[in-house]
């Protein structure tokens, strides 16, 4: 057991390292190449998505194999509003994405949270693929398999169209996305530290006992589903301008698999785990892709290794190392 002084020391260490890490990320574009900053930018978007995803997976114990659906909703909202309606105000785009995704998540979630484990995974996979077919087949609306272009949004009302693309992305857009990541991570921290967070963990560990203690299992699972869907939509809407083109592949079940991979890689039992997983995945994928076209084989092997030998992910490995050094 830890005494009071140890606890506060640990807390301060955590806060300090977070601030240092945050400052490092903030200033990254100043001392690295544009390409690395660009990768970081995509990481920010995925980070928001997986932080939300882990509320459902790590904290509530529900594995969704269709979560990329909500990311695609956000991305397509951005594409739609910017190219079809020439509407560029990013803040409104984000709000619309959240509203659409939340409504969809509320509907889909109401159906899915009645089931658990394999059935939940299968149902969410089905919905994800349903959306995929919708995006593919209704091409006059969605652009079919070619997708839609995403035009540059206005950030906080400012039009940056004069600036060359990469400079915009690694400059103002980078800061904008990072700020959102910081805020949304803080919000998620509040959620998981709240009574709702406690109840979700209880539902994850023992839904029967949780019910006997007055916890509304289905209702709270639904909350987690909707919140994580909203987060994914924000992530998708932020990713869209960075990649410039959205296509139905965003909601293909294997893309949902990527989200799970990132979360598992970093460690689903740790609050910041998914963030670690996201950044490692993106940079590792880039590195491996440049070495071989068979990167999926290597990543498949990594996933297999994690599932079998290191289910706690990177964060899990770090904490067991720390624990071993202490004893």
């Amino acid at each position, binding site marked *: 057991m830890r005494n009071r002084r140890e606890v506060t020391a640990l807390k301060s260490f955590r806060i300090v390292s977070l601030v240092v890490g945050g400052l490092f990320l903030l200033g990254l574009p100043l001392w690295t190449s544009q390409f690395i900053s660009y990768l970081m930018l995509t990481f920010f978007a995925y980070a928001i998505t997986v932080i939300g995803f882990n509320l459902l997976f790590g904290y509530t114990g529900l*594995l969704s194999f269709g979560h990329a659906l909500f990311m695609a909703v956000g991305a397509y909202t951005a594409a739609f509003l910017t190219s079809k309606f020439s509407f560029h105000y990013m803040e409104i785009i984000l709000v619309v994405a959240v509203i659409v995704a939340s409504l969809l998540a509320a509907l889909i979630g109401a159906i899915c949270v009645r089931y658990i484990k394999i059935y939940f995974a*299968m149902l969410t*996979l089905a919905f994800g*693929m349903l959306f995929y077919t919708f995006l593919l087949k209704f091409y006059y609306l969605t652009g079919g398999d070619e997708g839609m272009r995403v035009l540059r949004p206005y950030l906080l009302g400012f039009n940056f169209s004069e600036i060359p693309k990469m400079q915009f992305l690694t400059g103002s857009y980078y800061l904008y996305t990072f700020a959102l990541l910081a805020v949304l991570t803080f919000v998620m921290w509040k959620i998981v530290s709240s009574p709702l967070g406690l109840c979700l963990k209880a539902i994850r560990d023992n839904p029967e006992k949780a019910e006997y203690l007055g916890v509304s299992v289905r209702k709270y699972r639904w909350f987690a589903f909707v919140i994580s869907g909203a987060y994914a939509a924000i992530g998708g809407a932020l990713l869209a301008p960075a990649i410039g083109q959205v296509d139905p592949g965003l909601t293909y079940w294997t893309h949902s698999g990527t989200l799970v991979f990132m979360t598992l890689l970093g460690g689903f039992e740790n609050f910041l785990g998914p963030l670690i997983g996201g950044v490692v995945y993106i940079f590792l994928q880039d590195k491996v892709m440049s070495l071989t*076209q068979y990167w999926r084989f290597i990543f498949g092997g990594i996933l297999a290794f994690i599932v079998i030998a290191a289910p706690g992910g990177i964060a899990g490995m770090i904490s067991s190392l720390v624990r071993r050094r202490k004893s």
Partner: protein
Amino acid sequence: MIETILNILFSGVFNASTLFLVAAGLQVVFGVQKVFNLACGTFYALGAYVGITVVKSLVAGGFPTPLFIVPLIMAGLLLGFIGPIFERGLIKFVYDRDETFQLLLTFAMVMMIEDIIKFIWGTSPQTMGGIDLVYGQLNILGATIPVYNLIVIGCSFGMAILIGYILLNTKFGRTIRAAADKREMSEALGINMTWIYVKVFTLGTILGTLGGALVIPAGAAVSEMGVELIVLAFAVVVIGGLGSMKGAFVGALVVGVLKSIAISTYPELEMLTIYIIVIVVLVIKPQGLFGGGRV
């Protein structure tokens, strides 16, 4: 009019035949080991690619073309024996884990095997060049059906009966059913679960590779076929009920015929209808038509 219906029906049943094999493989592994093997579609793809290579090289070497179905089936069957490699090498480590982790492991297998396929065969589609027409076509009431398709339907049907017989009448079958029903009890009765798991997984893999091998003469092997098939196979087992062989049979027929109907009427709605039906079934009767157990 009648020809159209018959054409739809026969192509539907043909789809169903190969779907049934893959779904049966999925069911038997889920029923006994409780592992939902996402890689079953990838095994199917593997069967297809290997089938093409084997038959093409044999025929090029002078093997009589009309007999191509023999090495094809043999290739499909023998390939399935890579099953134990995956079962002992990977899956056995997660039997005592949460179902969702087992699912993720099979997802990892999909990623790895897909790239192996890409490495060996590349990404461009492969075909057997219409070798299935070697057996000619039959004309039934105006509908033209390749005889090959009928052979495949017959094979599948035969497999279904064989599987049914094994499950109901042989010691192995009874052991499988006992293991699927009550695992601890079976272990307590001295049944060697390890050996059973290996055998069952191998059976599941063989069914998958055989399905892929059989379907390929009538179509093309493309790199997405494994990943696409899992979605159909999953629709089959949802409709039929997880863990039920009867369900695999009925579910395959439903999905196969539906797919066929959709292709001839509204191709855009093909997968859409199937997913909607999956969702409807999962909502109304999540156990499917023949499945059991809690959801």
